[in-house]
């Protein structure tokens, strides 16, 4: 368990992180979302010890993070970095060995990883000859090469095509399933929505919401429903306690003053004829994000 507790940081008198606290739990993919400049990268750099916090602390399994512990973290920086003029396999093996692996172990891990991220055929090419998408796959492999106990990935999916997103998501999910906490930032909310188990929402250097994705959805869900009938659904507006959000012929979206009223509305609809669809509307991450960051 990674715990960030009351971390603050100021750059040139500008407070970029203000009392930031959150956790990344084992086996969970935690999405770290926020607008540009919200403090995602700064938080990650502090977790990795690349930047010191002015106050607060970061602990791993309840203890302060030492270099030896940090060596077992995997990190993908926001601005991609590998040696352009080195072969892919060679530099991944080099990084693995810097992380403390023996040469044979590093080679085995690298070959296995390259296979999984779909780069086996480019293993002996210079990094700079790879497409940007493939360079990013190599970058993810670099974060995973030493079988880290914690993964911190800054915008791992930006600039990737959907197939590459799926490949990398699969690899990361496997790690999470192995019990590794994964913290990944993104501003592509649809991707985060699909992949994350937990969410941390940051805006203006403060944490606005944390929790599991489903919990947040429930917390921020208004009692909103969609109903589709055969005829015109205009009659719904006359029911007590109902406010219409959207009405379009047979389809209506409405909020309820009292969520317990939903069955009453459904019965009223069935009394008038066949019901084609009736369901609560779960807010998208985008909507939650908009709400908590306002």
């Amino acid at each position: 368990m990674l715990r960030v507790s009351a971390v603050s940081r100021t750059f040139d008198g500008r407070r970029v992180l203000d009392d930031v606290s959150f956790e990344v739990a084992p086996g969970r993919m935690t999405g770290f979302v926020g607008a540009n400049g919200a403090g995602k990268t700064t938080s990650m750099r502090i977790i990795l010890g690349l930047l010191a916090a002015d106050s607060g602390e970061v602990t791993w399994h309840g203890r302060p993070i030492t270099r030896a512990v940090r060596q077992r973290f995997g990190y993908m920086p926001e601005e991609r970095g590998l040696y352009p003029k080195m072969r892919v396999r060679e530099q991944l093996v080099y990084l693995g060995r810097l992380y403390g692996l023996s040469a044979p172990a590093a080679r085995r891990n690298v070959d296995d990883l390259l296979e999984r991220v779909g780069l086996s055929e480019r293993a002996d090419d210079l990094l700079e000859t790879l497409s940007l998408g493939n360079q990013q796959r190599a970058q993810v492999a670099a974060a995973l090469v030493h079988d880290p106990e914690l993964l911190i990935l800054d915008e791992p999916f930006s600039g990737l095509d959907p197939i590459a997103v799926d490949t990398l998501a699969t690899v990361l999910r496997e790690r999470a399933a192995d019990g590794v906490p994964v913290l990944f930032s993104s501003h592509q909310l649809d991707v985060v929505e699909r992949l994350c188990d937990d969410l941390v929402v940051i805006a203006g250097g403060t944490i606005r919401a944390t929790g599991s994705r489903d919990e947040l959805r429930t917390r921020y869900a208004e009692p909103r429903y969609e109903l589709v009938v055969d005829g015109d659904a205009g009659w719904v507006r006359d029911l007590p306690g109902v406010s219409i959000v959207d009405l379009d012929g047979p389809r209506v979206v409405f909020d309820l003053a009292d969520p317990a009223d939903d069955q009453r509305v459904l019965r009223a609809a069935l009394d008038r004829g066949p019901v084609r669809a009736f369901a609560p509307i779960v807010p998208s991450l985008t909507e939650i994000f908009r709400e908590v960051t306002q």
Partner: protein
Amino acid sequence: MTTASAPVTHRPTEPPRGGPAVATVPSRASFWAATRLVAGREITVRLRDRTFLFSTVFFLLLAVGATVLPALLGGGGSTVAVVATDVTAPLEQAGLTVVPAGDTGQAERLVRDGTVNAAVVPADVPGGVRIIALDHAPDDLVTALSTAPPVDLLDPDGISPVLALLVPMFFGIVFFVSSLAFGVQIAQSVTEEKQTRIVEILVTAVPVRALLAGKVLGNGALALVQVAMLGLVSVVSLRLVDSGPLLDLLAPAIGWFVPFFVVGFALLASLWAVAGALVSRQEDISGASMPVQMLVMLPFFAVVFLHDKPVVMTVLSYVPFSAPTAMPLRLFAGEAAGWEPILALLLLLGAAALFVALAARLYEGALLRTNGRVSLRAAWRGREIRPARR
């Protein structure tokens, strides 16, 4: 593409998943292991660099050329047509090729058509000889036929003025070229890591100082091998063409040059690394490294131009930046007492220890600041941004 069956992950030491990580204090062993890895990468990259290989070969050929060519051009005995046969023996002893000629007329024709360089014919004086040549008096022939008065040399090992000029150039150029070429490489390698941001991954894996040490040691080892090859090639080719006292004279100078080179190189290399760490783009290196370039160039020119001023040379042989060039030179000229190189080397070691320590702090302070040019002051104060070391 094959499908990966039963993915296996490999861990060197398997801690319990999700359990508390075993926090070990980074040992000296892991520091040096990291340093070795970094040094190894520097060497591999450099050995694959065509420019580096070509320049090494070029310098080796230059060394061979510089030692062998003068001997080849200077030697090569002339061919002489001889009519008076009783001078054949001394001429052959002097290394000249003798061609017998029937009479003076035939000898003159041989000179005219270029078959021989000169001819020795009987003179009008009984027993005397006359030399016939085309357009200039053949010195070697004249010397071979002259009776020289005996000469007693008081300082038989004295160095010719030509050597006195060439040797300082040699030590100076070797140190100058090596520390400049490898220094620029070190700076570029540091900046490359900053520019590509791989440095952020590197410093989470290994101590910053291991990065610095690896770069200095890796490039230093290569520089030393390059210089050693240069020295070996020069000595061997010198042996081939000249068995004179030069080598014996050079030996102590070369022997002392090695430790001076190693320590002096480490000093400058750490400064080059700082220059590289201060900037974030390759284009900015030359500006940031200007002070270091001066520290390489000024001592070089001082030694080359002032090598005949003993007082200046004495001072230069103790100043850390010029000592690697000036001290071996004074040893070669026989001007330095036996204890002097030891003292100068200790001074150099002290200066190197000081500068490397300062450089390590500046390097750490500057390495993770990737927003443009870092001032020395910011790098010095860089503690707040420095990765926590525990």
